[in-house]
C-alpha cells in the first residue's frame, strides 16, 4: 500500500498543536516583557539554604529597586520560600491573570505552597501507573504558567528559586529561549553552596550546566559558613571546607557573601550580611 506521509499533506490539522504550544510560549514572552532581570537561585545540592537566600535577597533588594521584586518558587515539590516570606493566599484571579501573593516587604510571590493543602505532597490528577512519563511535562507546564499567567507587573527582578539539581535551570532557559538575545541578557544564575567538599562538587555540576545552557553566572553565596556564637560573638567553623571560594575561583565569578548559621532569629542576626549581599548582588548584576 502506498500513501502520503505527514508533511506531504498540506492542509493544517485542526488541532494545530504546534500553534497551541507556540501561543503558550508567546504568553511567557509577553509577560516577561515587564521584568527587567530574571535570576535563577540554584544549587546542585539540597538543604544548603537556597530558599533562605532567595527570600533574604528578595527582602534586601526591595528597598533598593525602583519597581519591585518577585519570587517564583520553582521547587514545586518542596516549596518553602512563600513561608519564609510570610506570603499567603488565596491567589486572586482576574481577567489579567493570577495575581501573586504579597510577602514581607511587598515581595510578589507565587509558589505551590500557596496551592497545596498543608502537609500534602505535590500530586497531579492522573491515571495511576507510568506517572513518571508525564510528570516532567506537567511540572514544566506549571513552571511555564507561573511565568506566563501571573500578573507580575513591572519588576526590576524576578528571583526563581530552583529545585536542587540542574534540570530546573535547563527548563527555565528553554522557557525564556523565545526571548532570544533579550532573554539571554535577562537570565542569569546565582549559586548557593555550603562550605563542604560534597557541596562544592555538586554545585559545580549545576554551575557547569548553567554555562552549558548559556546562562550567565553572577556569583556564589556560601551559606552556613560557620556558626555565629551569640554568647561570645565569634564565628566558629560548622562544616569543613571552603566551597564558596573554590567555586568562585573555578568559575571566575565573585564570592558574593559568606553567611553564618545563626540559631536565634537567623534573618535578623544576619541582617548586615544580607544587606551586604544585596549590595554586592546589585553590583554583580549590573
Amino acid at each position, binding site marked *: 500500500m502506498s500513501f502520503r506521509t505527514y508533511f506531504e499533506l498540506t492542509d493544517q490539522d485542526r488541532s494545530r498543536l504546534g500553534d497551541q504550544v507556540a*501561543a503558550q510560549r508567546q504568553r511567557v514572552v509577553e509577560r516577561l516583557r515587564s521584568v527587567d532581570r530574571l535570576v535563577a537561585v540554584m544549587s546542585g545540592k539540597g538543604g544548603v539554604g537556597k530558599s533562605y537566600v532567595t527570600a533574604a535577597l528578595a527582602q534586601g533588594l526591595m528597598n533598593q529597586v525602583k519597581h519591585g521584586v518577585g519570587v517564583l518558587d520553582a521547587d514545586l515539590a518542596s516549596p518553602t520560600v512563600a513561608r519564609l516570606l510570610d506570603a499567603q493566599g488565596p*491567589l*486572586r*484571579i482576574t481577567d489579567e*491573570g493570577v495575581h501573586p501573593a504579597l510577602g514581607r516587604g511587598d515581595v510578589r510571590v507565587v509558589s505551590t505552597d500557596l496551592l497545596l493543602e498543608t502537609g500534602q505532597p505535590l500530586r497531579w*490528577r492522573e491515571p495511576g501507573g507510568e506517572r513518571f512519563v508525564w510528570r516532567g511535562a506537567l511540572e514544566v*507546564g506549571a513552571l511555564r*504558567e507561573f511565568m506566563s499567567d501571573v500578573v507580575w507587573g513591572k519588576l526590576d527582578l524576578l528571583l526563581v528559586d530552583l529545585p536542587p539539581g540542574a534540570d530546573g535551570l535547563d527548563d527555565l532557559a528553554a522557557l525564556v529561549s523565545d526571548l532570544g538575545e533579550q532573554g539571554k541578557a535577562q537570565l542569569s544564575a546565582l549559586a548557593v553552596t555550603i562550605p563542604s567538599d560534597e557541596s562544592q562538587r555538586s554545585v559545580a555540576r549545576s554551575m557547569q550546566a548553567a554555562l552549558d545552557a548559556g546562562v550567565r553566572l553572577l556569583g556564589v553565596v556560601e551559606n552556613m559558613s560557620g556558626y555565629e556564637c551569640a554568647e561570645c560573638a565569634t564565628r566558629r567553623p560548622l562544616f569543613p571546607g571552603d566551597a564558596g571560594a573554590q567555586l568562585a575561583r573555578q568559575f571566575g565569578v565573585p564570592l558574593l557573601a559568606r553567611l553564618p548559621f545563626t540559631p536565634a532569629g537567623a534573618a535578623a542576626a544576619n541582617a548586615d550580611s544580607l544587606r551586604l549581599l544585596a549590595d554586592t548582588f546589585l553590583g554583580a548584576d549590573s
Partner: protein
Amino acid sequence: MKFLCVECDTQMTFEERKEPGDGTFGAAFGCPSCGRRVAMLANPMEAQLVGALGVKIGGRTLAEQPMELVRSKLVGKDDAFHDAPPDPSSGVSRGPRWSPESEARLSRVPNFVRGMVKKVYGEWAEERGIAEITPAVMDEAREDLGLEGM
C-alpha cells in the same frame, strides 16, 4: 496529527471530540470526499500525555484560562484561588444565568478548579447566545471543550 483517507488520498477533517470521563479520549475524523468516518481512541496514558502539554486535540474554541493546566491537573486546596467577579464598570458581561440544577452540579466540582470551570462554561454558553446554563448545556460544553471530569 493528521488522518488520510487512503482510498481517496484526501486529508480527513476533525469532526468531534469525546471525553467519556474514564480518562480515555476519542476524536472522530471524516473524509470530505467519500464521507468515510474514523474514530481515534486514546487510552488514559495517551490522553494524559496530550493533557500534560496543556493542549487540546481538535483545537481550542475558547482562550486558555489563567493557570489552566495547574488548576485542572494539580490536586490543590479548596481555597487556593479567589476568582474575582468582573468589574461592573468594565462593561464585561456577568454571563448567562445558572439553573439551580446546574449550580448543584457545579458545586460538586473541586473548589480548586470550580471558578475556572464556571467561567469556561459561561463563556462557551455566551458565545452561543445561551441565556441559561442547564445540566444539558454543561454536558454539551463539556464534550465540546474536553473538560475531563468537570
